């Protein structure tokens, strides 16, 4: 199955004035305004377009309940990393293009009246890659959820660890897992929502480890990039490999949830998961 990267489609695919978007799955021409109303899901085939962090927060949270935390965190260049261009230039370009400080946003908000700590990743910022800032925000969100004893929700969209930060990016797997282990020990629930794509080090740390794991339909979710895997092993990949339904079939997802149902499903789950002081409190 070919890997689709709708984000990288060339400009000619968009008609003048960006009024229309072509669905990469069914080739239907979609009016952008209509697409916004369907939460960026193709009305004819159900293809889920990638969602930026602001749109995602607006979709999931009750209106005007989001209180962002730690917006002032910004990447450094610990390795002095230069490939085709220096890492700080890449970060600056991504900040300019997205208006975001890094690939994750966290804060407190409410989902159908239930207060949560929420992290939302943004694939538009350097492929949603996890460096020190993303790792720090996830860890602080887990610590914040623990202190406030409210559930944690993380919506992942990431190609994995940020190579330009080297092993310090790898160490964010340990940092985030350490914080999540404390959350778990304190019986504060965590729901992981995986969107397209959730791969590499993000999948191999917090994304895979929700008390409940949800994913949007047909999202690419996997550890090794399909090309890496096929190249290294020289094996045919099974159909639908590393897609949500594949993960579901193999027991790593609790539910595959269409975007239009996500907010309601999260709210319904949180009514079971929210920390309770006593068993009696489970009534009602």
């Amino acid at each position, binding site marked *: 199955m070919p890997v689709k990267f709708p984000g990288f489609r060339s400009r000619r695919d968009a008609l003048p004035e960006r009024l229309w978007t072509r669905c990469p799955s069914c080739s239907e021409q979609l009016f952008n305004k209509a697409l916004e*109303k369907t939460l960026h899901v193709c009305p004819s085939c159900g293809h889920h377009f990638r969602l930026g962090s602001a749109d995602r927060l607006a979709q999931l949270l009750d209106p005007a309940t989001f209180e962002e935390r730690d917006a002032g965190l910004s990447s450094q260049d610990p390795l002095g990393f230069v490939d085709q261009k220096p890492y700080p230039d890449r970060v600056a370009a991504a900040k300019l293009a997205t208006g975001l400080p890094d690939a994750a946003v966290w804060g407190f908000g409410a989902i159908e009246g239930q207060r949560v700590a929420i992290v939302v990743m943004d694939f538009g910022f350097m492929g949603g890659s996890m460096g020190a800032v993303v790792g720090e925000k996830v860890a602080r969100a887990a610590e914040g959820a623990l202190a406030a004893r409210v559930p944690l929700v993380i919506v992942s969209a990431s190609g994995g660890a940020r190579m330009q930060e080297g092993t310090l990016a790898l160490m964010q797997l340990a940092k985030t897992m350490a914080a999540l282990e404390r959350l778990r020990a304190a019986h504060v629930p965590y729901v992981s929502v995986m969107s397209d794509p959730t791969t590499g080090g993000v999948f191999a740390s917090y994304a895979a480890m929700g008390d409940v794991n949800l994913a949007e339909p047909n999202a690419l979710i996997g550890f090794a990039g399909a090309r890496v895997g096929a190249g290294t092993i020289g094996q045919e990949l099974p159909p639908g490999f590393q897609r949500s339904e594949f993960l579901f079939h193999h027991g790593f997802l609790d539910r595959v949830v269409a975007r239009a149902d996500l907010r309601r499903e999260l709210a319904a789950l949180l009514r079971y998961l929210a920390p309770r002081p006593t068993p009696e409190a489970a009534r009602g």
Partner: protein
Amino acid sequence: MVDRILGRAGKPGADAAAPAEPAPERSAEDHKAAVWARVQLARNLRRPRTLELLGAMADEVIELHGDRLFGDDEAVVAGFARIGAYRVAVVGQQKGADTEENIRRNFGMPHPEGYRKAMRVMELAERCGLPIVTFVDVPGAHPGPESEERGIAEAIARSVGLMTRLRVPIVTVITGEGGSGGALAIAVGDVVLALENAVYSVISPEGCASILWRTSDEASTAAMAMRMTATEQQALGVVDQVIAEPDGGAHTDHEETGRRLKAAIVHELDRLTAIPVDLLVEQRYRRYRSLGAYTEVPTEVVPPAAPPRSGLADRLRGLLEAGSRAIPAPLQVGRRDEPPAREDV
């Protein structure tokens, strides 16, 4: 932590015990060649693996097998060993020394069951109060379909999480290739040692080059850019101490490598077993919590803007929602008639 990071930038030799790095006046090309030579040494076929190192340093080794869930992955060895005065649990990756053994051990690339075996033995060690010593030498976790089907990411995440909270001392040694998540899964420790020619990276230099340079020919450039040598990792704070190898590299003298490693491991066990366990676990948490470089501009917590609707309506809605699950939640938008992926709640 940030100050830890400031000691970086090719200023090796901060630790007198650390082996010499290429001198700063060397050209970039020389430096690249030197880094690449270390990558090759780390991958040397005759480099001592977990079992060879244990053979050189332990008085007794009892290997345990199987993850109790699926099978026994020979790319990971786990069990008990007596090192100096200590009875410890050991976990390590094991590449093969020849083609036949490499096929059996899958070229040292563990499947999920390998990490699950490691977790089983580490949890057993915690229950028995045994310190844990891990030996890391892995190109990466196995990237194939079976690995994904059985949840390699879940196994790695769970193992990393487990190691952050185990209530026994953990000494980790990067002995060869520290290949990304497949390495970290058994490399979360109270102290991380590295052999002189070991390397540690977030992705293989070939993988990094093929993504960022669009050709794996630039692997040596990527290796240099990622600062993956043991001394550079020490400067970053990822590795705590570098152990000098015998002249020519660890593969030239397994016994001597084991002897040097044993001294360092026993020294760390002496130190760590004296620390009260609550403090030990807290220090380990702090160690990983502080890794990574970022700047922070203090920001005020912005209270959410006043809701567009009256507070009363929202409060009533909240009450209704809290009061009854029978009342369907309001949908945000008109839902398209596409079928849901699965049945609704």
